[in-house]
């Protein structure tokens, strides 16, 4: 029997599927980890659910997925057709006239839709919204017939200036839907009525590219769930960190591009908030990359767009995640000029580090951690390998780094770690200092398996206040699925001058968009405490092309928004002064875009459900000592079973805390304590 109060978060990763179960009534919390089945993710998904409860009993499932991300990165989306304005067939391929690298002129670009799949139909809208040539139904039907005959599985319609007036796109959409054999038809104004044809076309094209893939994936999952009697609701985490219905995910799958990582950031933010840390930097160290994200005042920063790969731009609001090429598998080398570098080349997870003995002979960051005793060679994370080959790792470091630089293998390993730490520190500076935040007020929250290895060093390098290691770093994303609010974003180009602003008319437009977004959130069948509608304007001084995001201190109340020119001006000047050192009095100010978000706030998740058992003690958690290298020498480091530590336990570095899916390195000079949620708080002594 379905228990409405039960909720499962499911994060399907490349290697493992992590699940987190919570019963809102009994406050029962359980986790499960099962191998992922690449290509048939439903198998692991269902298997994991069954470990938690009978599927028919579950009230809701929220899923963070990488199926969209992978299809984009591996170029495994559908065959798509594009219908566009005369003269603009090549928008996707013209890009913004960029090139892959600043230095070096090699490399070319294949757009996701080959040129013969991009058709022009007579139509034209001018920049002021005037329809110069109306689109004809027959032309759309003919274009569709041609594309269908060529085997197109999804269709994207993108007309010039559709942001200013979508009438032609709407007419084309209606005509196309009538003849297209499936539901995979979308138009640019539906997803992104914002100026800039390349970004809009790229976004809608990538959306079409993902539609059949994501629809088939969700279909398989839904069939499997139905087969097991699931009668609850099923939601997907979006890149903006909010959840949406599967119906919306099918329509706008491009909004799932960063689904999994976004869920992790949301969970880290919630864990931080509960523990009293509103300003955090999340740090996720994977095999090939290090992802950081900034959460200030409890709110994750959103970016307006991201580039998946050269020429593949997705412009929808998404959690701002900065990625650098420094992961556990990153290869260390000394270049011709004698400089030690780590990455961007990576051995990934296959063949992986030298110590995995799967064929790689060049030393990686993980090898350095193994050689210095930080990673337990006898108990590798994930449980796939029996033990790690420390000697092979040491020999590789000696040959590739130690000898060229005249360092001992241990000193060379430490150098690798310091250079990698510096790169990670650079990424943290990038998201904090560069955005005007003071890193000394921030707490690092590592998640995933590797982040906690380096978190102590990051505190020292960047000058962070502290670090908070969640009790279960490996399931942070699954936890985020449970915690995430429901969210819907809308953007529209408005192009209004601030001087003499018709505030009432803008307010009416905001109210209308706000109501629409609120209705979408209200329709999702997940319990919410309230729905907030927030507004932000993209503004600039007239003549600038970039804008600053200006959050407005107004909200939607009883279907109305109240707004004045003065309120908007004050908000603009605050935001501009924060971004740059100089205001420019006397230059007219322009409002370019209106951004609206409706957020259905979920009931607060009580993280105390994760707390250690009352009978835990430091003594039972202690696992003896091991030699670990820090700051130029070997130290006897205490080893602990992290999950067996009680609340308020205090540990002094050097120490290593181990758990099934993560290793925490506590450098000398750092201390750690367990808070009431089971988090580990690391600070300078």
């Amino acid at each position: 029997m379905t228990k409405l109060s039960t909720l499962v978060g499911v994060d399907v990763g490349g290697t493992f599927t992590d699940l987190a179960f919570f019963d809102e009534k009994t406050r029962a919390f359980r986790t499960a980890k099962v191998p992922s089945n690449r290509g048939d993710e439903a198998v692991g998904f269902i298997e994991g659910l069954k470990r938690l409860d009978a599927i028919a009993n579950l009230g809701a499932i929220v899923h963070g997925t990488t199926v969209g991300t992978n299809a984009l990165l591996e170029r495994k989306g559908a065959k798509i057709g594009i219908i566009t304005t005369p003269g603009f067939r090549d928008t996707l391929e013209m890009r913004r006239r960029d090139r892959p690298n600043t230095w070096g002129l090699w490399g070319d670009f294949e757009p996701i839709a080959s040129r013969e799949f991009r058709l022009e139909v007579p139509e034209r809208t001018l920049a002021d919204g005037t329809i110069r040539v109306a689109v004809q139904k027959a032309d759309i039907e003919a274009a569709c017939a041609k594309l269908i005959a060529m085997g197109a599985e999804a269709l994207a319609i993108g007309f010039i200036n559709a942001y200013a007036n979508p009438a032609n796109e709407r007419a084309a959409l209606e005509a196309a839907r009538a003849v297209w054999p499936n539901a995979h038809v979308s138009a640019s104004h539906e997803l992104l009525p914002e100026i800039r044809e390349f970004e809009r076309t790229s976004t809608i094209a990538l959306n079409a590219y993902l539609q059949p893939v994501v629809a088939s994936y969700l279909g398989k999952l839904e069939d499997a769930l139905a087969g097991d009697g699931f009668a609850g609701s099923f939601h997907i985490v979006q890149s903006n960190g909010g959840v949406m219905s599967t119906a919306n995910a099918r329509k706008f799958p491009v909004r799932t591009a960063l689904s999994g990582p976004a869920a992790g950031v949301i969970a880290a933010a919630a864990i931080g908030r509960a523990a009293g840390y509103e300003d955090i930097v999340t740090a996720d160290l994977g095999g090939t990359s290090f992802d950081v994200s900034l959460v200030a005042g409890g709110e994750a920063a959103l970016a307006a767009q991201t580039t998946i790969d050269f020429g593949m731009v997705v412009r929808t609001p998404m959690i701002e995640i900065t990625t650098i090429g420094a992961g556990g598998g990153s290869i260390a080398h000394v270049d011709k000029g004698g400089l030690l570098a780590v990455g961007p080349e990576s051995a990934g997870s296959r063949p992986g580090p030298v110590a995995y003995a799967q064929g790689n002979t060049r030393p990686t960051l993980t090898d350095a951690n193994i050689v210095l005793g930080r990673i337990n060679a006898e108990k590798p994370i994930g449980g796939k390998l029996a033990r790690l080959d420390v000697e092979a790792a040491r020999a590789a470091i000696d040959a590739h780094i130690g000898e060229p630089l005249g360092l001992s293998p241990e000193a060379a390993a430490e150098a690798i770690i310091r250079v990698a730490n510096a790169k990670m520190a650079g990424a943290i500076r990038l998201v904090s200092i560069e955005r005007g935040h003071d890193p000394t007020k921030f707490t690092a929250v590592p998640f995933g398996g590797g982040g906690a290895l380096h978190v102590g060093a990051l505190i020292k390098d960047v000058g962070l206040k502290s670090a908070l290691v969640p009790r279960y770093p490996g399931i942070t994303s699954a936890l985020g699925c449970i915690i995430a609010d429901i969210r819907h974003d809308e953007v529209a180009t408005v192009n209004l001058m601030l001087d003499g602003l018709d505030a009432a008319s803008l307010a009416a437009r905001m109210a209308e968009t706000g109501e629409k977004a609120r209705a979408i959130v209200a329709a999702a069948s997940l319990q919410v405490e309230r729905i907030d509608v927030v507004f932000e304007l993209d503004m600039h001084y007239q003549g600038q092309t970039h804008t600053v995001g200006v959050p407005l201190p107004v909200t939607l109340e009883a279907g109305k928004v109240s707004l004045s020119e003065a309120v908007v001006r004050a908000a603009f000047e605050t935001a501009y002064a924060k971004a740059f050192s100089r205001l420019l009095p006397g230059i007219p100010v322009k409002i370019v875009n209106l951004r609206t978000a409706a957020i259905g706030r979920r009931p607060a998740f009580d993280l105390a459900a994760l707390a250690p058992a009352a009978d835990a003690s430091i003594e039972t958690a202690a696992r003896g000592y091991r030699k670990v290298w820090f700051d130029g020498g070997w130290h006897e480091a205490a080893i602990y079973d992290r999950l067996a530590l009680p609340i308020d336990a205090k540990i002094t570095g050097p120490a290593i805390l181990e758990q099934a899916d993560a290793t925490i390195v506590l450098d000398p000079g750092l201390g750690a304590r367990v808070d009431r949620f089971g988090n580990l708080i690391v600070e300078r002594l």
Partner: protein
Amino acid sequence: MTTPTLDPVTFAILTGRLEQIADEMDATLYRSAFNPIIAEARDACHGLYHATTGATLVQGQRGLPIFVGAMAFAVKSVIDKVGPDGAEDGDTFIFNDPYAGGTHLNDFRLVRPLMRGGKLFAWLASVGHWLDIGGNVPGGYNPQAVESFQEGVLIPPVKLFRKGVIQQDIVDILQANTRVPRSNWGDLNGQLNALDLGEKRFHALIDEYGDGVVEAALEAASARAEALMRANIAALPDGVYSFEDYLDNDGIVDEKLTIALDLTIAGETMVLDFSRSSPACKGPVNIAKSTAVAACYVALKHVFTEVPANAGCLRPITFEISETSFLGVSAPRPVAGYTETILRMIGVVFGALAKADPSRATAAPFGTINALSVAGHRSNGERWVLFSFFGGGLGGNPASDGLNHANNPISTATMPPAEILEASYPVMFTEWGLRPESAGAGAHRGGFGAVYALEVLSEGGADVSLLGERGRYAPFGVAGGAPGALNLFHWETDDGLKSPAMASKVTGVKLTQGQEIRLQSPGGGGWGDARTRAPEAVARDVVRGLLSPETARQDYAVIVDASGLVDTKATAALRAGEAA
């Protein structure tokens, strides 16, 4: 001062952190600039320069490549003017003198001393392309200038700030000498934002590591760049490699201009001798010697990509550039079209290096910026100026076909979207796409150029001027590859289509409402023998409508129909016959 020891790890860390600050300065200006040539096209650069020599110490990774080479000369001109002790805390110099380490008048440099404990530690500098600085043609690209006075106003290095106080008189002079005072004022503030930020960040970093350690790291970075460059040169076979290419004309005199290079490799040193090049010319395609050196730097950096961007990499290289040639001019020779000349120089360096090392041979990129200005008045009398640069194809190379519709090697510019241009100016683009048949044939063909066509919507019509190149000398192929297509420009008149007498340079074209202009940019040159290109790859371009079956037959010896079906047998026979 004792030299602190610099361990390899601290060096690696500081290298990254110093670059990050310069990157951040770049980003600050892009985001706060007014004119799209900085904000979108990133025609700007920031860095840290040596206190006494002006040599480049650190530069951002995203800065306009040509400035990376030129900025050292600009800082040096400030040092030369004020002497070793002439700068005080809070001073900021401003200038655009193209003969004193400049490029052309639009590029405004701001140079500020970074003082540590009352002593000069290094210089911070910012350069950005301002939209208009007076002169005969809006935007400055006057293809008919014979003196720099017709290109705009020239500002020598002067103090814009004295001890932190802005000299409003100078601002007033600048504002009075431009058609777009607001835009320039916005860009100036953007550059000041970047300098403020850089100053703050560098101080914090030096405080953290100590002056001596940072100084040692900067010196080590230069030494490393030098070592890498020497290693790269040493790997090339000794010898003299000559290459030449041409500019259509100077816009005034319709005669070709030659850029001839004799490149000598001797051990780990290189000589770039341009002595055989044409003498100074009347029109605006001259360049100053500092600009010429910067162009060579850009070319080398595109080939030896791993060499860091600092002055060390130029130490093993000698330049022979005559002051009587059009590559080493002084005031008041016109230089507004400098981009065309340096693009050709870069191609010539690629061409010579291709002979020295075929494994790195890169065919010529499209090689012109096509500076197009379309200007008029709105019905309310307000003036509008659409000014932009346009893209083309890159050259085929050992790794891949050339990139379609790319920016020039001297920049990392992105192009404003058509919708932004249509929203800002009374024009409508009727075409904005790839240009079929424009890529140089080759085993790896060049990238395709582009077609841009626009119709004037404003009642009062518009005046058009263009400064472009490659109208007569196409982007060359290498290793047996064929050249790309020539640059073409047409405008509509009541008597049909017209094109410029000087190939790609024209001013004073009058359009009435509803008339069109059409610019077709060159594709890149091809790499390798086109007859060895995979027939499927040729067929793919045919299916895509980028290559006709006739051209496929003629250039690639592939028999393919319009649907992309290859006649394998006939192709093999044709190719065998041609080889025989």
